[in-house]
């Protein structure tokens, strides 16, 4: 697998897919960098699976183009493109053993005898399933079947490997294990991986680049840490991790910082972290960036509030604090349980502080709850899948 040079970018150009009156994917333009691990993250029904199926050739776009490098593959049949898929249900052929499942693609491409043997064995070794080559899929555990599905796709050395929620059916522990495994395989073979998932943690763990998708559109795209640090929409702020958000009004500028009036005080943030420099702005800050002030601190934003709830989670403690920002939307704070953690109980009055630079400013017209309900729903779906496996 030394053909590093030929890895090409995948381009989706103004792609739209409608089913009757329902638009699943709406004028989507996207470039997936070649050779990287790309995650398409979004709640169920956001169009991510449809997007994947269009790349695989299992659906044809209503409009727009799909390009691999500079080749237009929009209307190519699935078997005419060098793109392979790991299906959510694995879709292993039940009548063929593991070896023949993996060899299927090679045989259809006309690869013969010894080469088939050699390539299948190599890829089975890569996913550590050599010993099970003559078993039938039904005799394998979920994790093993998943690895067969990956091997069956990878053996063809595709330009792009598509993964459609491949870990959804596995229990939590196995899922973590497979995340690391897939990441290892990807860096070993260097193929472009496109991974569709609704699990934001999974996307952040595995991907070099994440595109957050909502209602048929890409909300934001970038490196995981970058996007987590500076979400550009309320949907991303809520779906990718958790955020405390409040509506504010920009009142002025102080050097490189913007001053924003929020209920009960004023917040300062770097202007380059704000979506706007005048008018309304949604102020956001991640729960772990906030802390309960126990000494005098400089250069921080502040908000006072009353602790409603303290819950100990082992590594950290989560505080729910009611503030003047919005009494109906209490602020969440994560404090690591290390030295300096304050002794606070429900009913206490506290001051929350965070560095100016951790603040982000979103478009004032965004919906504070965008992505919130969906994140909860996605978590529920994931939990239900876990429960089923036990």
């Amino acid at each position, binding site marked *: 697998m030394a053909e590093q040079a030929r890895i090409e970018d995948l381009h989706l150009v103004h792609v739209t897919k409608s089913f009757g009156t329902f638009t699943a994917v709406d004028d989507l333009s996207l470039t997936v960098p070649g050779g990287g691990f790309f995650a398409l993250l979004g709640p169920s029904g956001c169009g991510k699976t449809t997007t994947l199926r269009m790349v*695989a*050739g*299992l659906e044809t776009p209503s409009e727009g183009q799909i390009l691999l490098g500079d080749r237009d593959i929009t209307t190519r*049949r*699935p*078997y005419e493109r060098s*793109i*392979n*898929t790991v*299906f959510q*249900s694995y*879709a*292993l*052929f*039940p*009548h063929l*053993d593991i070896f023949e499942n993996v060899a*299927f*693609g090679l045989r*259809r*491409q006309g690869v013969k005898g010894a080469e088939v043997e050699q390539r299948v064995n190599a890829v089975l070794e890569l996913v550590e399933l050599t010993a099970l080559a*003559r078993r*039938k899929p*039904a005799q394998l555990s979920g994790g093993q079947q998943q690895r067969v599905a990956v091997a*069956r*796709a990878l053996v*063809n050395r595709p330009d792009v490997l598509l993964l459609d929620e491949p870990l959804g059916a596995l229990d939590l522990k196995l899922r973590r294990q497979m995340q690391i495994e897939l990441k290892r395989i990807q860096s070993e073979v260097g193929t472009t991986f496109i991974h569709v998932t609704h699990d934001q943690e999974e996307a952040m763990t595995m991907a070099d680049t994440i595109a957050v998708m909502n209602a048929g559109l890409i909300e934001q795209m970038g490196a995981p840490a970058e996007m987590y640090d500076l979400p550009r929409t309320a949907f991303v702020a809520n779906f990718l991790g958790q955020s405390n958000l409040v509506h504010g009004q920009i009142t002025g500028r102080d050097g490189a910082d913007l001053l924003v009036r929020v209920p009960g005080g004023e917040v300062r943030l770097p202007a380059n972290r704000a979506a706007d420099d005048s008018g309304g702005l949604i102020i956001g800050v991640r729960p772990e960036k906030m802390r309960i002030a126990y000494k005098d601190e400089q250069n921080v934003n502040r908000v006072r509030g009353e602790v409603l709830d303290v819950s100990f989670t082992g590594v950290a403690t989560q505080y729910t604090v009611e503030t003047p920002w919005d009494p109906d939307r209490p602020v969440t704070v994560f404090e690591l349980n290390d030295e300096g953690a304050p002794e606070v109980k429900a009913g206490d009055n506290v001051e929350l502080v965070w560095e100016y630079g951790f603040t982000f400013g979103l478009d004032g017209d965004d919906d504070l709850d965008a992505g919130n309900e969906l994140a909860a729903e996605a978590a529920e779906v994931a939990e239900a899948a876990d429960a089923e496996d036990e």
Partner: protein
Amino acid sequence: MPATTHAVRYRPSAWMRTSRWIRSHLIAAYGILALLYLFLPIAVVFLFSFNKPVGRQNSTWNAFSFDAWTHISRDPTIMNALGISLRIALVATFVATILGSLIAFALVRYRFIGRSSTNLIIFLPMATPEVVLGASLLALFLNMGLPLGFTTIAIAHIMFCISFVVVTVKSRLQGMDPRLEEAAADLYANERETFRYVTLPLVAPGIAAAALLSFSLSFDDYIITNFNSGTIVTFPMYVWGAAQRGIPPQVNVIGSIMFFGSLAIVIAAQLVGKARRKA
């Protein structure tokens, strides 16, 4: 459980022991009775194939004999009727299995105008009393001026076998993960290869079951056949006719052979399936 420590000293009464024994063996007893009920008639058929009947009627046990087994074809009309039935069954099975499987694929795979009414129409021959089917087919053939015989019987059998084939193959197809064919296409198999290497092998057991069912339905049919046979006599018609005068034990022999033959097929299929799963 603390109760177990006391149970050592506890001696259940005789009545309790019996009732417990009955309860634990009730299902087995029930199962044996049900199997007896199913297989007793076949056992009688088998047994009487070794009878040496006194008169024309093979209904009272006289003496043990291999006579009927060694002289199956003593009466040429039996063999003739058997041959006709087998040939009709083969033709009906062949045509009905192909047509029915194609219909099943169409019904499961495609959404078209008239799909639900097709489903209903396919079901009708199974729900219609055979007498009615036979009589109306006869009227049809007479009106068309088609001479009654092998062809009309075959047409009638194909007609009612199709329904059973469609139902059997359809359920197999519906149970198949549609992602499998997508996976095949994704793995460089074109439509023809996908059908050959994935769809067909997976649906084959359903098609085979449908063919076996068609064969026995066709071979066995009396009522519809009787309406449309003209001068031809099939095996069931021969047996029916012979029953008036006295059935020769050769009929029992043929019945037994058919039974053990189908049993052998089923056992072989099971063994092959088991071997495949193990491999």
